[in-house]
């Protein structure tokens, strides 16, 4: 018997002539958090909506808790919590009335007080929803998603519009839910959020999953980064090639900066070898390497290299 709570195989989805999702595969074991990353239009929300049962899969297989999320959605919905990308709340209701409504639709919900506390909205219980800030509405939305004690939680950009304090509180809530065994599928634009929360991630671009795995697995193989500020007297075309490649020149704080991505052979010591080569060049040219930095590739580097089709 499969222990995967979410299984997606060869999923395709199109809107008219536009193919939004082009044959993606991934699975999420019970009690893990899987993050889908990508730019707008990458296919994340479409994938979520198929898994949430809002639309059938055009092609491929999709299983949620062992069932078809569209065909069996009536049976699945009480076991699932959904936080859409936009709130969809009734402005005339107060916060506690909204949670009360959602409670009444569930079989074994949290109390209103528990839900308010989890979303850190206890002091807004009597406030009309239309008077909440964007971040507070997102927190209320999250409270509605968790009020039914879901086994699976879909969070579509949950912290968009939240201030840093609320974002950190939301991360803590999500971590607690995962620790309690809830399976979470998350989409986010915040790479830090994915790095902090996700057991595994997938980066989607143009309807395809370009890379997936744990964060260390995803960044592995994407080289190290070397950068330094180019002195004014050094012509750009005299800068050395490292690992066989010329630098990419960007302007930071008004100064040209040379950036190298070192991805060649020698996986254990390539940055060391390239740094040694760079230092040797600097010594022979009497160049001072101002603001020299050497670091491994970050998730942001990998993300940008994918979405910029590098």
């Amino acid at each position, binding site marked *: 018997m499969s222990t995967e709570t979410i299984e997606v195989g060869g999923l395709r989805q199109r809107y008219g002539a536009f193919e939004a999702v082009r044959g993606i595969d991934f699975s999420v074991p019970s009690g893990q958090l899987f993050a889908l990353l990508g730019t707008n239009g990458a296919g994340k929300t479409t994938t979520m909506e198929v898994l949430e049962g809002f639309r059938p899969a055009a092609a491929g297989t999709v299983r949620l808790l062992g069932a078809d999320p569209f065909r069996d959605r009536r049976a699945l919905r009480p076991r699932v919590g959904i936080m859409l990308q936009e709130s*969809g709340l009734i402005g005339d209701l107060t916060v506690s009335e909204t949670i009360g409504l959602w409670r009444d639709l569930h079989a074994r919900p949290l109390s209103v007080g528990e839900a308010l506390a989890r979303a850190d909205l206890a002091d807004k219980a009597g406030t009309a929803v239309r008077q909440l800030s964007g971040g507070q509405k997102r927190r209320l939305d999250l409270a509605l998603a968790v009020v039914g004690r879901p086994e699976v939680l879909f969070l579509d950009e949950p912290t968009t519009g939240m201030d840093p304090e609320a974002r950190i509180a939301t991360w803590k809530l999500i971590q607690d839910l995962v620790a309690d065994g809830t399976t979470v599928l998350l989409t986010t634009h915040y790479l830090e959020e994915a790095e902090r929360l996700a057991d595994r991630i997938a980066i989607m671009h143009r309807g395809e999953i370009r890379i997936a795995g744990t964060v260390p697995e995803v960044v592995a193989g994407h080289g190290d980064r070397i950068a330094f500020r180019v002195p004014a007297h050094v012509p750009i075309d005299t800068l050395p090639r490292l690992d066989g490649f010329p630098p990419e020149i960007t302007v930071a704080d008004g100064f040209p900066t040379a950036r190298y991505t070192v991805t060649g052979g020698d996986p254990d010591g390539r940055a060391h070898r390239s740094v040694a080569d760079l230092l040797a060049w600097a010594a022979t040219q009497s160049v001072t390497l101002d603001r020299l930095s050497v670091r491994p590739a970050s998730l942001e580097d990998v993300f940008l290299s994918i979405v910029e089709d590098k």
Partner: protein
Amino acid sequence: MKTDLAHVYRLARLDLGLIFRNRSALANAVLMPLGVAAFLIFTAREQGGADNLSYVITGQIAALVLFAPLVNLAGFFTSRREELVLKRLLGGPASAPAILGGSAAGATVVYLVQALAVGAAAAALDVGLPSNPLLVLIAVLGGAVVFALLSMVISGLSSSGELAQLATVPVMLISMILSPVIVPTEAFPDRLRQVAEFLPLTPVADLVRAGYGDAFQWSSLAVLAAWVAVATVLARRFFRWDPRRG
């Protein structure tokens, strides 16, 4: 099924609560239709004739179905869809029929209360009580179902709550003028009368009047049932949960 009914009840309670909380909704859905009915009944009374008064009162019991179950519900479904409230609800444990049924049930309750108010006026104005209340109930509930389904069709074709309410105006006007709620269809030319017999409000008015002592005709029930079927097919075809915007 039991859960669905509980959800319908909870969502109907929500919508009724919201109507009474919002002054403009209260005026548009509850008070204004009663005001129109009161005006027409007052005018009929002034113009004289017990038969005329009885005709207008029973006609108004039917015509009130055009307000809460049609005009208000069309606007309500559309604005909630555009604000993603419907989709948010659909993402919860309530089923699609329970979500739509809850709002339709709320509108039906408003219509029932309005019909009861006009019925009370009928009793007070010596028109009397219905001789067959069951037929009146069938007319009111059947009419509410048909027009709630038609409100879903109009909602599906409209991009905002305001436009949806505007789109109900032709339906209202045609129904008020051609169906036998103010003017008897006998006053129309033959061809127009034949068309009027098959309008959705006509069987509602005929059944209400049958409840008040006119001759009952199975054809009225058949036309009403046919409209339930047609409106169901149209609603399934045109109603949408996702916003039309972007």
